[in-house]
């Protein structure tokens, strides 16, 4: 993975000093909260329901074991012993003190980490495929490109006061494991007919109040030009994105209102000018970065056989591992969704354990997924059993990847001042209702996503089953949606009808699931059955 050079380190260290200065000035009253807020947001520091919350960046979801240990240290020293992995591959700490925030950033800087631009109306963490560098279906590792973009977007002087936040995702396969069509900009690495390397560019996706699937704005931009092309995309947005209404300020609204064709035309016009400015880094810079992403020293001649005699291990093997491009290896997924647990949360001890396991079994590397789980990308098949035993002993061995209890849930009203309803208790109740693993496996792939408010941080629009918490006359109420997908077959979920209270929503989900079972044909997932038969049978079952 990427390692900072002196320049990267200086930038991060300087940022710590700058933020320390800003915090000092805030505490001394030299700047008001209104003036300080954008500064602290650009360092990922929110004032949340219970305390300050710090969102630490995990660039394209990649971590070393050393960095993971620092995350555990921060949880212990500055927080209350745990952290929350988010739907953008970052980690959040919920109990931060402002006066300690500069020290936390200083500690992070010692392991090449930061909290830069994890909030604010600027370009956020560049996300990517959690199986990058390991999956057989990628045409190359997307992460060096993501690193190039991370540097390009960091403290970009023109794009730090955008109309709204800006999220970019990069993948390198046909299968979309990073939901690129639901990002402000989604990039898919590909080759054109001439065999040249470049990106298909999607612009204007997003969830929230007005969810949209991004159109393709440009089918191919060469890797040599894509930075200046993105500069043009951002400049058009900065100049013409709406600033009159907070809820209409994302780029998806601009693309929708002027049309994809017109937006693409304006970008081409701007790019014709911008590409002459020498903004694109030279190929040597990409090569320098890419060298850090060379494959680890895989062993060869390894066996493929795995002893499945432990039935619990066999279940985990079937659900929580994914084929690796290198013979003898597998991708292992650590579930942070134990039944009844808090989705995405991990204790400091668990984080330390995962660091140790990464060091021992995965060439020192981990990934955070946008589904709030952790990946060990390069595990020898021969080591999977020992790995699983260690995970199982620490409550990290739940065999539920992509099953109904592998729920994505935002922190919701338990933690978030934007929320209208609690999401975590709903996730817990649903997981408990479906706790039986045989039942879960019978249901198969079922991506259930819960948001506590319309901001959709739980990605409910992209759930096969989505749940949206609302405030109905001061009471928590839950709307049910079906048919969303964040994969390459991107679609937005549709509401079933009137909402439910916290017990009603669990029953409604169960009725929907039983309807699926009654109607499914061979091999169909919930999503497939829903797409085939439509809303009507489900509505009848749920509302009687």
């Amino acid at each position: 993975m990427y390692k900072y050079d002196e320049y990267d380190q200086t930038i991060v260290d300087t940022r710590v000093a700058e933020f320390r200065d800003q915090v000092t000035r805030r505490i001394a009253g030299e700047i008001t909260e209104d003036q300080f807020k954008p500064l602290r947001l650009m360092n990922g520091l929110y004032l949340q329901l219970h305390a300050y919350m710090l969102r630490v960046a995990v660039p394209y979801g990649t971590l070393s074991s050393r960095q993971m240990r620092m995350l555990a240290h921060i949880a212990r020293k500055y927080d209350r012993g745990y952290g929350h992995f988010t739907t953008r591959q970052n980690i959040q700490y919920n109990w931060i003190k402002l006066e300690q925030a500069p020290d936390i950033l200083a500690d992070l800087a010692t392991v090449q980490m930061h909290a830069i631009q994890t909030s604010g109306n600027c370009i956020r963490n560049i996300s990517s495929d959690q199986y990058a560098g390991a999956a057989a279906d990628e045409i190359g590792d997307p992460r060096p490109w993501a690193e190039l973009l991370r540097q390009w977007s960091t403290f970009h002087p023109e794009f730090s006061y955008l109309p709204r936040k800006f999220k970019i995702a990069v993948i390198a396969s046909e299968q979309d494991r990073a939901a690129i069509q639901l990002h402000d900009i989604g990039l898919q690495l590909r080759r054109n007919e001439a065999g040249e390397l470049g990106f298909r560019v999607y612009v204007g996706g997003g969830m929230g109040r007005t969810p949209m699937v991004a159109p393709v704005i440009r089918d191919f931009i060469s890797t040599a030009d894509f930075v200046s092309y993105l500069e043009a995309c951002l400049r058009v947005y900065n100049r013409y994105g709406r600033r009159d209404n907070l809820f209409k300020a994302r780029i998806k609204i601009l693309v929708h209102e002027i049309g994809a064709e017109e937006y693409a035309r304006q970008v081409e016009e701007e790019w014709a000018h911008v590409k002459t400015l020498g903004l694109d880094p030279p190929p040597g810079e990409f090569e320098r970065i890419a060298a850090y992403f060379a494959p680890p020293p895989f062993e060869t001649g390894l066996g493929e056989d795995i002893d499945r005699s432990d039935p619990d291990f066999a279940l985990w093997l079937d659900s929580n591992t994914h084929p690796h491009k290198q013979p003898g290896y597998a991708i292992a997924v650590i579930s942070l969704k134990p039944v009844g647990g808090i989705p995405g949360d991990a204790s400091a001890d668990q984080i330390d354990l995962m660091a140790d396991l990464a060091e021992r079994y995965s060439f020192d590397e981990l990934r955070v997924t946008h589904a709030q789980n952790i990946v060990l990308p390069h595990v020898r098949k021969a080591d999977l059993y020992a790995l699983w035993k260690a995970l199982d002993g620490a409550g990290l061995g739940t065999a539920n990847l992509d099953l109904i209890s592998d729920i994505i849930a935002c922190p919701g009203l338990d933690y978030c001042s934007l929320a209208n309803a609690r999401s975590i208790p709903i996730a817990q109740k649903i997981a408990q209702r479906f706790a039986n693993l045989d039942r879960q496996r019978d249901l198969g792939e079922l991506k259930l996503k819960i948001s506590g408010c319309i901001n959709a941080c739980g990605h409910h629009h992209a759930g096969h089953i989505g749940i949206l918490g609302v405030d109905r006359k001061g009471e928590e109420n839950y709307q049910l949606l079906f048919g969303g997908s964040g994969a390459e077959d991107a679609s937005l979920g549709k509401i079933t009808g009137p909402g439910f209270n916290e017990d009603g929503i669990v029953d409604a989900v169960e009725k929907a699931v039983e309807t699926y079972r009654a109607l499914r044909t061979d091999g169909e997932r919930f999503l497939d059955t829903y797409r085939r038969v439509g809303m009507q049978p489900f509505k009848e079952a749920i509302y009687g």
Partner: protein
Amino acid sequence: MKILTGNDLETGDVVWWTGEYWSRHVEEAIDVGDGGDAIAHREEGARRVNAPYVIDAERTEVGPRPLHIKDRIRAIGPTVRPDLAVRPVDAAAGNWVI
């Protein structure tokens, strides 16, 4: 009744106006009536609180109970982590339920 809440600037702790100081315990909050905005303005200006605002609450045996669920969660702590709850000042007092 109307009570005044905010966050401690340096620690981020949720705090409640007691009439004399900012307490971490909602049961010590007083009714500010119509004067909440003026107090908020004064206290924020003196940097004794950050981002204060007035909320509605009802009187109960154990002190003010915020009317809106969001404010109650703010007063108690995350409902899914009772081990992190804000403990009442009087350990013998009953807890009010969400």
